[in-house]
C-alpha cells in the first residue's frame, strides 16, 4: 500500500510538471498582460519600466526558468495585478470556495440519494418518472441561467433570500466560515443550490442505476428470504453496494465543484478563488493562473487517493495495487 501511494505521488508530480508547462506557455500565447495593466496614458519608457519590474521584458523561456527556480523554493510568483504572492491570494479565498463546494456536495447527497433510491425502488411510478425527467433538466440547464433565475425568483420577486455575496463569517480553528450563522447560510443557500444542481442530477441517476443493478442480485433475494425487513435491506445491504460508484464520482466531482465554481461565484459575487481565477484569466495574471492550476492538480491527486482508500473501507475485496507490482 505504501508503495502504491508513493508511486501514485511520483506520477502526480509528472502530471503537475506537464500542467505547469502547458499553462505557463498557453497563457503566454493569450497575450502580453502589460497592455491591460498599465494606465493607457503612459509613455513607451514608462510602460517598459513596468514590464521590467514585473519581469515581462525577458524572453518567455527565461521567465519560465525563473519561475521554476523560485517554485522549487516554494515561491510560486507574485501576482502582476495585486503585487501579492499568488498562492496567498488563492489561499485567502479558498475557505469561501471550499465551504460553498461542501455545502453543494451535502445538498447533492441529501437531495440526490433519497430521490435516486426512490426512483430505483419504484421505477414504474409517475413520480419516479418525474424525478428522472427533472434530473435531465438539471443536467442540461446552463448554470449561469439557473443562477440568474434563482436570484430573480428568490431574491428579487419573493425577497426571501439575499441575492449576492457571502454572509458574515465566524472563525473556527482559524478558518473563516459563513455556514455557522443563519444569515451566513441564507447567503450561501442560493449559490450552493446553483452549484449543486448538476450534481443532484448526477447522484439521482447514479443511485437509481445502482439500485436497478443490485436489486435483482442473489444476496438481496437471500436477505429477503431470510426475512430481513425491507428497510434493513435497502439501507444496509443495498445502499452499501451502490455507494461505491457514488463515492467515486462524488469524490471526483468535489474536485470539479471546487475547480469549476467559477460561474456560480461570479454570478453570486461569491468571494472565492473561482472568481479570482476568472478575473486573473481576463487580466492574464499568469502567476495566479499557474498557481491555481497547480493547486487544483494537487487537489485532484489527493481526492483520487482518498477515493481509492475509501474503496478499501467500502469493499473489502478491493486491494490497492498497481498493475505493475
Amino acid at each position, binding site marked *: 500500500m505504501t508503495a502504491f501511494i508513493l508511486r501514485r505521488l511520483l506520477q502526480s508530480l509528472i502530471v503537475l510538471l506537464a500542467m505547469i508547462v502547458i499553462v505557463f506557455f498557453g497563457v503566454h500565447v493569450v497575450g502580453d498582460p502589460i497592455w491591460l495593466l498599465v494606465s*493607457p496614458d503612459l*509613455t513607451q519608457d514608462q510602460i517598459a519600466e513596468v514590464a521590467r519590474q514585473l519581469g515581462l521584458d525577458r524572453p518567455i523561456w527565461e521567465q519560465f526558468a525563473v519561475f521554476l527556480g523560485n517554485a522549487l523554493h516554494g515561491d510560486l510568483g507574485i501576482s502582476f495585478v495585486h*503585487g501579492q504572492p499568488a498562492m496567498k491570494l488563492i489561499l485567502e479565498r479558498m475557505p469561501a470556495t471550499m465551504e460553498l463546494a461542501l455545502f453543494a456536495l451535502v445538498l447533492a447527497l441529501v437531495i440526490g440519494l433519497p430521490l435516486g433510491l426512490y426512483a430505483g425502488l419504484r421505477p414504474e411510478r409517475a413520480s419516479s418518472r418525474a424525478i428522472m425527467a427533472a434530473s435531465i433538466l438539471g443536467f442540461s440547464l446552463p448554470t449561469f441561467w439557473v443562477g440568474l433565475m434563482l436570484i430573480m425568483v428568490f*431574491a428579487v420577486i419573493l425577497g426571501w433570500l439575499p*441575492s449576492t455575496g*457571502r454572509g458574515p463569517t465566524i472563525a473556527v480553528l482559524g478558518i473563516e466560515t459563513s455556514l455557522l450563522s443563519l444569515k451566513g447560510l441564507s447567503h450561501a443557500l442560493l449559490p450552493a443550490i446553483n452549484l449543486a444542481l448538476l450534481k443532484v442530477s448526477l447522484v439521482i441517476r447514479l443511485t437509481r442505476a445502482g439500485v436497478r443493478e443490485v436489486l435483482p442480485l442473489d444476496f438481496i433475494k437471500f436477505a429477503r428470504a431470510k426475512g430481513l425487513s425491507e428497510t434493513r435491506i435497502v439501507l444496509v445491504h443495498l445502499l452499501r453496494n451502490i455507494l461505491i460508484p457514488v463515492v467515486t464520482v462524488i469524490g471526483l466531482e468535489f474536485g470539479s465543484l471546487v475547480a469549476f465554481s467559477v460561474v456560480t461565484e461570479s454570478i453570486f*459575487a461569491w468571494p472565492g478563488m473561482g*472568481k479570482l481565477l476568472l478575473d486573473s484569466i481576463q487580466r492574464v495574471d499568469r502567476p495566479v493562473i499557474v498557481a491555481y492550476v497547480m493547486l487544483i492538480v494537487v487537489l485532484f491527486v489527493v481526492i483520487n487517493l482518498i477515493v481509492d482508500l475509501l474503496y478499501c473501507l467500502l469493499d473489502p475485496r478491493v486491494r490497492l495495487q498497481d498493475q505493475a507490482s
Partner: protein
Amino acid sequence: MRMTVFSDFGRRPLWRGIAVILVMMASGFGIDRLAAQDLRIAVSSEPSSFDPHFHNLTPNNQIMRHAFEPLIFADESQNLSPGLATGWQLVDDLTWEFKLRPGVKFHDGSTFSADDVIASFERVPNVPRSPSPFTSYVKGRMLEKIDDLTLRIKTAAPDPLMLNNIAQVMIVSKAAARAPTEDFNSGKAAIGTGPYRFNAFVPGDRVVLDRFDEYWGGKPHWLRVTLKPISSNPARVAALLAGDTDVIEAVPTTDAQRLKADKNLIVASALSNRVIYFHLDQYRDVTPFIRAKDGSEIKNPLRDVRVRQALSKAINRPAMVERVMEGEAVPASQLLPDSYPGTSKNLKPVALDVAGARKLLSEAGYPNGFKMVMHGPNGRYTNDTKIIEAAAQMFARIGIEASVETLPPAPFFSRASSGNNGHPEFSFILVGWSAGTGEPSDSLRTLLGTFDREKGTGAANRGRYSNPQFDAILANALRTVDDKKRAALLAEATDLAMNDVGLIPIHYQFNTWAARKGYALVARSDEYTLATSVKPAP
C-alpha cells in the same frame, strides 16, 4: 394564490419553523439603512489594493478617493478646485507655490503639513511592482518646503499640466510613506485625510469605510460605507432590485430604460470623458486585413485621407447612439466633449452621407470598395461588439465589405499594440479612451502624436497617424502655461487631426448609476463612484 398552495401554512410545526426563519431573514433586510446612515454600494470591479500609489486604475482610484485626498480636487465635471492646497500661484515660469490647508487631521490624529506632501511625492515612483504607477504625475517636479504650510514645486521646463497632474496624486501621512503595499491593504498604513477611514479590505469581497469625524470639510453623511464588487451586470442589477445594495454603478444600457421606469429606483447619468473611436492603420503600405474584393493584395487605402473621410461619413452616429447604445451616449466629434477646456468648438459630429462617401471612395480609386476585417475587444467597453457589427453594416452601404472579429480584451490589446513585432497588428480597430485629467493634452499626445519613444508621444497611437504640423502645435501647447493660449493650441491641434481623420470618433458614453428611492445621486464624468456623491433625497 400562495394561500391556496400552502393551505396548511402555519399549522404544521415544520412550516411554522420555516416561516419563522424566513421572517427573521427578511427582517434583516428591512432595517432602515437610510436612517442608520449605512450605505452599501455595488461596484463593477474590485480594487487590486488599498495602496493609493499602487495601481492607477478607476476601480482603485475611486475607493482611494474616500480615504485619501490630493492637493487639488476635481469635481464631478472634472473642474479643479482647492483640496489639501488652498491656493497656488506661479512664482516664475518654472516655480509653483502652493499654500496648504491648515488644521487638517490625518486619520491617526497627526496634523497635515508640507512634509506629508513631500513624503507622498517621494513614495509614488518607489512602489515596488506597481502594475500602473502614478510616476508620470510627479516626474520632473521637485518639491521644496518653505514652511509647514507652504510648498514650492520646481520644474525644468514650463509645466502647464501641473495642476491637472498633481490632482491625481493622493497624499498619505509621512508616517505611512515608507510602508509597503501590504500595510496599506491591512489598514495599518492606510492613513489619509479623506472623509472616510479604512475599516476593512477583504479582497474580492468588500471594502468597508467608516466616517472620519475630524474631517476638515464638514461632517460626511454616512457613518459606514460598504463597497462590494459584483462584476456580473445582471447580478448587480438584481442586487439593487432585491434591495441588497443601495447604489450600483455601471448600469448596463439594456437595463437603463427599465430601471428609469421603476418607481422604487432613481437613475443618474453624466456624459463621460470616455470616447469610443476607430483607429486606422496609417503606417503600412500594405495592411494585412484589407484586400481587394477578389482577395488580391492592394495598397493600404487607409493612408488616403479621402478613404478615411468616407468611412467616417458612412457611420450613422445618431442611429448608433439610439439603437446600439439605447440612448446612453452622444455622437462624438473629437476626443472629449466640447464642454471641456482645450476642445475644439468648430467640430460637429460627422453626419451620415452615403452618396458623399461613395464619391470620395471613387475619387480615391476604390469605386467598388474593398474587403476589410475590423477588430475589437469584446466586453471591454459598453456594447463594444454590437458597435463594431453595426459599423460593419453601415460600411456595407458604401460598398466596403467589412467583417468583424472580436477578441477577449487580453489578446486584443496585446495584438493591437504589439502583435506585429512590437507594432500594431490590426488594420481597423475599435478602442475607447478616457481623459482622466479632464483636458485633451494626454489624449492628443498618446493617441495622435507620432509614435516616438524618445519624446514619449504616440504610445497608444495604434493607427500610427503622424503629422509633423500636428506634432509641432501639440508640443507648443504642452509648453504653454497660459490656460487660454494652451486651450486654443490644443483646439487647433484637435481641428487638424480630426479634419485629417487621424482616427474616427463615434460617441461619448454616459456613466450611469442607479439607487433605491430615498437616495440622491450626483453623476460624475470621470466614472468614479463615491460615497460623497450619494445623499439622502431631500
